[in-house]
């Protein structure tokens, strides 16, 4: 088995035209081949290398990570004397990824990395999370290094990034007992010692994924007496200092292989990353956007795993004298799961490409001033990335949960038993719509793009794709969704009430998300009709029902309804 070669839909996203530009920029015009013997000479070779790497990751994930997941679920990580001891199978996974050279995927070659674009890293992460969402966190946290890469000093890049490429693990230590969604109130104290010119951290962090990592990124209050986000700075703290201890590991519903830790900083020496006071408002915001894309990826991976399990079971289970996949209520569930999966994946990679372009322009801007045209373009990509990220994080995670629910349902009573993988997927999926910002917070982040008309504009852009005659009726139906979206939005805005807008925001958000996903899937079907046509037909029918339902709700909405909630 190979999770990459068995997934034609995922492979499709390696053919997107924008990738050519992303790679060209990431490879700085393929200028590194003379200096590094593993750098590609042109686009064709870069793609060949990505394909080979994805095959390798797909093989490791199906062959090692997936079989190890059940053991990790049972053995789990434990806290011993302030340190996290991973399950043996977790160590085995980490060992194989280190030996395969897959720990510094996006980092520049000068720091020992592979220099792969974010879009490719995302594909790899999908493979890893499909095998084991919990391990996917440990592995995916290598992406924190991007923050040091973007905002750290050259000295810090030279020290920490090669460590990450060689296999050091990372964590981002943000949440505290009294600072969850509201990070502004973080209290962990950073003090500067005039004596030795170093910073020291004191305090407690909670719910920290992989909290006993080798390299911690820590949000801490560096400005004594301050109370808001402007008094917070970002620090780099190494496990080797011996003054960061894991007090306990949470017992969670799912993702058991990913230790969620309460950690104590006891005068731990640390280095300031970037400028003081910019910790939350600049660096953590950037870090979180990357992390949200990561969770969206994990969500699509779980949606895939749940679908694969349901499909396989429905093809083997016999009831009423036939395999259950032939029963309409079952093929409805399985076919719908596949459509939601394809739609979410399409939005995921559209987001990843824009995030990638955004990174590429940021890199370019760091090396030389951008031309006015470049600056304009860079802003377009940045806005698109910002608008799409909350859309895929929210919808992707909800879809992961829907697919996990339906996967158990297809399995019937067996699916409720620990014997079947869908039971774990159901528990693992549950966190995706909560951590790195709940779906409700994604709606808050997204709603301004709905009210400003930006999503409508994006929808129009996606619908400008040329489609073969066979898909033209579907294109018209998606355009009709756009019209419904416009009408619903108008109604909400006409209410002129912030409370009503907040109350209805989720519905507006879903209308926008379903319409955009349908339009993106249409573009995929236009490029490969055989692969996506059936899924598109099903998804458009589904989107019509969802959009009509929400539009009806909004159409009938009157302010008096709210009083019935209070």
């Amino acid at each position, binding site marked *: 088995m190979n999770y990459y070669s068995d997934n034609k839909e995922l492979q499709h996203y390696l053919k997107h035209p924008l990738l050519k530009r992303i790679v060209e920029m990431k490879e700085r015009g393929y200028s590194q081949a003379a200096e590094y*013997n*593993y*750098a*590609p*000479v042109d686009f064709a*070779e870069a793609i*060949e*290398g990505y394909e*080979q*790497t994805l095959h*390798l990751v797909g093989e*490791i994930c199906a062959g090692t990570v997936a*079989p190890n997941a*059940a053991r990790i679920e049972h053995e789990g990580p434990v806290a011993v004397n302030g340190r996290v001891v991973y399950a043996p199978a977790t160590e085995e996974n980490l060992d*194989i990824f280190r*030996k*395969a*050279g*897959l720990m510094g995927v996006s980092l520049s070659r000068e720091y020992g990395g*592979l220099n792969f674009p974010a879009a490719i890293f995302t594909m790899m992460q999908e493979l890893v999370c499909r095998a084991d969402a919990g391990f996917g966190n440990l592995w995916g946290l290598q992406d924190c290094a991007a923050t040091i890469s973007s905002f750290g000093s050259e000295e810090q890049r030279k020290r920490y990034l090669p460590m990450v490429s060689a296999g050091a693990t990372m964590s981002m230590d943000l949440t505290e007992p009294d600072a969850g969604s509201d990070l502004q109130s973080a209290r962990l104290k950073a003090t500067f010692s005039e004596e030795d010119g170093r910073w020291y951290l004191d305090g407690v962090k909670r719910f920290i994924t992989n909290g006993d990592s080798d390299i911690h990124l820590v949000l801490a209050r560096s400005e004594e007496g301050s109370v808001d986000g402007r008094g917070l700075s970002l620090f780099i703290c190494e496990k080797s200092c011996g003054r960061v201890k894991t007090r306990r590991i949470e017992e969670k519903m799912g993702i058991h292989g990913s230790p969620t830790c309460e950690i104590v900083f006891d005068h731990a020496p640390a280095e300031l990353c970037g400028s003081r006071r910019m910790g939350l408002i600049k660096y953590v915001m950037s870090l979180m956007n990357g992390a949200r894309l990561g969770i969206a990826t994990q969500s699509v991976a779980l949606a895939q795993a749940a679908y694969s399990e349901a499909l396989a079971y429905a093809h083997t289970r016999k009831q009423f004298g036939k395999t259950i996949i032939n029963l309409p209520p079952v093929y409805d569930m399985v076919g719908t799961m596949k459509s939601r999966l394809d739609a979410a994946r399409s939005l995921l990679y559209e987001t990843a490409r824009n995030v990638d372009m955004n990174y590429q322009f940021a890199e370019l801007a760091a090396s030389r001033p951008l031309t006015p045209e470049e600056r304009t373009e860079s802003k377009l990509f940045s806005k698109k990335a910002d608008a799409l990220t909350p859309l895929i994080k929210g919808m992707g995670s909800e879809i992961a949960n829907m697919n996990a629910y339906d996967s158990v349902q297809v399995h019937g009573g067996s699916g409720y038993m*620990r*014997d079947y993988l869908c039971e774990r997927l159901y528990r693992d999926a549950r966190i995706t719509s909560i951590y790195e910002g709940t779906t409700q917070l994604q709606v808050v982040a997204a709603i301004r793009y709905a009210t400003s008309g930006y999503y409508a504009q994006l929808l129009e852009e996606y619908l400008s794709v040329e489609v073969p005659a066979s898909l033209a009726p579907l294109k018209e139906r998606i355009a009709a969704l756009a019209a419904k979206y416009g009408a619903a939005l108008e109604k909400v805005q006409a209410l002129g009430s912030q409370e009503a807008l907040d109350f209805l925001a989720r519905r507006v958000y879903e209308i926008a998300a379903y319409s955009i996903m349908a339009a993106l899937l249409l573009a995929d079907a236009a490029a490969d009709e055989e692969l996506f046509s059936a899924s598109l037909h099903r998804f458009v029918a589904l989107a019509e029902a969802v959009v009509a339902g929400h539009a009806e709700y909004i159409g009938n909405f009157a302010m008096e309804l709210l009083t019935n909630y209070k």
Partner: protein
Amino acid sequence: MNIIVLAKQVPDTRNAGSQAMNADGTINRSALPAIFNPDDLNALEQALVLKESNPGSKVTVLTMGPGRAADILREALYRGADEAVLLSDRAFAGADTLATSYALSMAVRKIGAFDIILCGRQAIDGDTAQVGPQVAQMLGLPQVTYVRRIVSLDGGKMVLERAIENGTEKVQAPLPLLLTVDGSAAPCRPRNVYRMLRFKRVATPQESAAEGFKYNAQLAADDALRIKEWNLEYVGGDAARCGLSGSPTKVKKVDNIVFKAKESKRFTAADEDIKALVGELLENHTIG
């Protein structure tokens, strides 16, 4: 140390479908993917472990086969081998184990000084387990078969753990030495992406001369990207001892045998065996 690994490209008989066999009982190679013989990967891993513990060592992988066998040489380079040799000549075609061992032993002589040769215990196509021992015999080397682990290497003497029925045994042997490595030895490390991105350009002289090959500039700058290709004349072999003419084995007929008894497995009381049994039962949902 100079370490040589003998490897073979084989049809993947583990995933044989209905098309896997021709009407005459021979293998339909086109219906099966060609892979690195599994036990040979275990041998490669032992070679790489030896290399790591003996800095300055060199691992050379040698295979005999047609041009496409270069694929497993690339695979070996991706996993950490330093050099690759393809022994290829029409004169080698149709070789049985004796003729194969002869040709390989001549190529080993051509490689020159070595401390140890590692091969897989057996190939999954022929399943004879004869080539390793025959090569040792032809080169006049001591041999240890069914090796599971290299325990130590000290003063030119190697201590090895062998897999035997109902257990393991430890033996000591002097270098130079030939080992055949059992499938129960440590699995081979994965392909390394950095090596893969570099060595995917690797080519035999035939491949690099082919139209459309685009890495000639890299090959010119980096000698490690050339796979050596040797023929009968180059290794100084006797044509009469090679290929069909050098093969005393004659296949008279092949029968399909269906085992009547149900599949059975033996598990010892050793902890790891019990663990494996429980793991298997958990995996197929018998228990758990």
